[in-house]
């Protein structure tokens, strides 16, 4: 098989390098600002500084919005329920990482 020379792609680390504005979130999630505010109100996402006219969000907020929207659409949960499910799933993921580490210790 021929292997064409590929250009090197550079990305940003979402957790560290990327901060999103309200406008970025609206664009990326196809939602009006009012809906994004609703997601904030129910704790699906949290702005980095609460007291600011210029809301900024961690890059991973986009994943939380998308997951919450899918849970809403597919399972019929409301936003409060989606926020709860997301928090619990993140907690489970953390615990699974810890279990993996403890199993390696033995």
């Amino acid at each position, binding site marked *: 098989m021929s292997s064409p020379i*590929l250009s090197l*792609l*550079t*990305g940003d*680390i979402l*957790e560290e390098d*990327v901060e999103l504005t309200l406008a970025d979130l609206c664009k990326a999630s196809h939602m009006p600002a009012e809906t994004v505010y609703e997601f904030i109100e129910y704790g699906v996402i949290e702005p980095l500084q609460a007291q600011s006219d210029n809301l900024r969000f961690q890059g*991973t907020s986009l994943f939380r919005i998308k997951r919450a929207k899918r*849970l809403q659409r*597919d399972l019929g949960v409301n936003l409060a329920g989606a926020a709860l499910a997301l928090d619990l799933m993140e907690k489970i993921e953390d615990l699974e990482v810890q279990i993996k580490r403890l199993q390696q210790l033995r």
Partner: protein
Amino acid sequence: MEYKDYYKIMGVSRDASQDEIKRAYRKLARKYHPDVSKEADAEAKFKEVGEAYEVLKDPEKRAAYDQLGANWKAGQDFNPPPGWDQGFEFHGGGFTGADSSSFSDFFEELFGRAAYSQSAGAQAGGYREYNVRGEDAHAKVLIDLEDAYNGASRTITLKHTELGSDGRPQVKERTLNVKIPKGVKEGQHLRLSGQGSPGVGQGKAGDLYLEIAFKPHPLYRVEGKDVYLDLPVAPWEAALGAKVKVPTPTGILDLKIPANSKGGQKLRLKGKGIPGKPAGDFYVVLQIALPPANTEEAKAAYKAFAEAVPFNPRAKLGV
């Protein structure tokens, strides 16, 4: 084309009430939702259940499906009898907005695709304009711990489904050369702008998100930005102190073990974890390794040690 037993997929009997079907669907949807389930085939199961529900929840489609008869077995080669749907009137109602393009050939043969896809398109997001940004794509990449220390470029191959010219989904492969930034940690996401699905019309392409995972390392354990190593030491090294060589992802270092160290004790090498601002730490966990008493000399040495040093390792247990 394979016959699909929608009742079996939903786990309900053929005479189940609409309410029972709804309850079964909700339960299965929770179980197999790709955001919730960790099972490898969750997405396929979720789609299958969605397809089954699409038919069974709609009395018109259910009646038409039932008419095929109960003697078919799942997976059996199937061709609809000619004129099977004669006399049935479909009103196209009650479509859930599920992604019908992913439904099976079986569904398509029975209920058609175009009509449903159209209605799905109209419901999906309410886009009016023809310029739509492409979908974002996600993938997981496995990298070596050393890549996080030094940075690296990795060639990754991604599989994705594309609609072919005949309108059927095809699995395509593409290869990307990606720079792994120095200091990246497990579970973090790399965003590659414009590398997702192409947009429609003037719409921009979506982004590609790569989730970083580390390959299991034979020596090191990683926790966030800190890295751990179990270091075996001889009893006399731990008791008397010693200078030993320690492997780290950046090379071999000399480590001073203080006198009277204990097994399980952690020694920290500040800033020698995964690089960053601030960098993680490297922890050496001491493991006391006992030399085997398999020669006369070794046995004599153990005996001499026992006589010279009065020691009850179980003193804390009160025995």
